[in-house]
């Protein structure tokens, strides 16, 4: 306890001995951690968006009015047997018209004038369980066009494809960027502690001469490194907390269809992760620095 008290107070004094340097490295670490957190949140948000879009992926088959019900049933059964397909729903002309009327009622800019005849076709709505299969399934179903049952097909694979590409690039690129950031943060800490060690070399020499153990020589610097990391984490998390509300409101307003919420649980995990990462990098960087500069 006494020893820990000494080490923490020595680390605190060390931190403020060169305040410009300490604050500068704390802010550098904070910016790194902020980028880290924003990256994790973006990744998480995009994944959620992909999930939502995936659940909405559909291929719609428009059926010939002259198609025989038995052929339609046969086609439906074949589609349902595909493992990527979650469900197939038959929508009749009348149901389609009812839906259109319902949409028109909610959106006054769409005026339905002549509804005495029904131009809408019967259709099969194919819901997919896995967005990555969209291209294959819609390709397969496209071959049915012109065989007497299906006359057209509508799908939306490009949006999903693009989103999947973005998440994949972001994951791979993100890991690379995170790796570089880890190095930058590590070097900032190593440098800060190296300067701290240099500034206190007389004190270190005397400590060694009078018989202080490694605890008393090294730990103040390691704790100082952890302080830089922890304070950086506090600054970064404070910044996130300050802007998280407005930004996520703006995003929801902007994206409209994507009610992406990260959830309080995730934010707690993120905060713990950022703090843990900061302590690890701070303590680790300082240990490396002390190891090379206090050898013997």
């Amino acid at each position, binding site marked *: 306890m*006494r*020893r820990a008290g*000494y080490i923490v107070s020595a680390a605190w004094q060390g931190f403020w001995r060169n305040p410009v340097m300490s604050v500068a490295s704390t802010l550098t670490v904070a910016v790194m951690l902020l980028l880290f957190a924003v990256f994790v949140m973006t990744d998480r948000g995009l994944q959620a968006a992909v999930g939502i879009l995936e659940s909405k992926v559909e291929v719609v088959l428009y059926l010939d009015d002259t198609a025989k019900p038995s052929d339609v049933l046969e086609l439906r059964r074949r589609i349902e047997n595909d493992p990527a397909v979650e469900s197939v729903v038959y929508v009749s002309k009348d149901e389609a018209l009812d839906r259109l009327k319902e949409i028109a009622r909610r959106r006054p800019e769409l005026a339905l004038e002549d509804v005495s005849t029904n131009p809408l076709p019967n259709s099969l709505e194919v819901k997919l369980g896995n967005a990555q299969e969209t291209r294959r399934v819609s390709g397969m179903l496209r071959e049915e066009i012109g065989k007497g049952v299906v006359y057209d097909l509508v799908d939306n694979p490009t949006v999903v494809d693009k989103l999947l590409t973005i998440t994949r690039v972001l994951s791979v690129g993100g890991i690379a960027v995170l790796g570089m950031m880890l190095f930058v943060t590590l070097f900032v800490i190593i440098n800060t502690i190296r300067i701290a060690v240099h500034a206190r070399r*007389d*004190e270190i*020499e*005397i*400590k*060694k*001469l*009078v*018989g*202080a*153990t*490694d605890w*008393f020589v090294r730990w103040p610097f390691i704790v100082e490194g952890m302080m830089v990391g922890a304070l950086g984490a506090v600054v970064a998390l404070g910044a996130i907390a300050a802007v998280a509300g407005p930004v996520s409101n703006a995003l929801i307003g902007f994206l409209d269809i994507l009610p992406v919420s990260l959830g309080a649980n995730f934010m707690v995990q993120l905060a713990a992760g950022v703090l843990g990462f900061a302590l690890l990098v701070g303590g680790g960087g300082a240990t490396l620095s002390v190891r090379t500069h206090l050898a013997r």
Partner: protein
Amino acid sequence: MFIVGSSGAGKSTLNRLLIREELPSSGRIVIDGQDLVRMKRSQVPFLRRKVGVVFQDFKLLPNKTVAENVAFALIVTDHQPRAIREETERTLALVNLTHRRSHFPRELSGGEQQRTAIARALVNRPRILIADEPTGNLDPVTTWEIIKLLIRVQELGTTLLVSTHNAEIVNALRQRVLHLDHGAIVRDEREGLYAA
């Protein structure tokens, strides 16, 4: 005991060997039954608590007062606050600096600074005190003041090793003299003089 010899004879190397700042390329060094060559790194701090060191340039911390400089040796060796207070006061009294306890090193004379350094070296109650040119930076009057203090320390039971170029002191005190030359002991006299 005095250690004499020209510059480069090995006096400072001997001192560094005795606190295991350096390891010998061959041979053994035994202090208080412990072989320093075979000693584990983790044991070195405990050796250094048994061997106090004083230097020509004092090596005081400029931003700490006399009392804080002395107490520092106890703080970083993990002593209880009460022991730190008591031992610091005892040692300051021994070197006659109680009245200067709250002054900073820059406010002290050279002799007072060296007495502070001696107090710091003694506060852990070492068995051996090594003084490397302790009077090299001091005027003759102050030199005698420091030497008298060191003799008192020796009389209180601490083994004293003083490296010096000061012939006058060595010749006046007639203590054991070890003469080094090119790293070897060329003379060892029980009540020796500076030169043979």
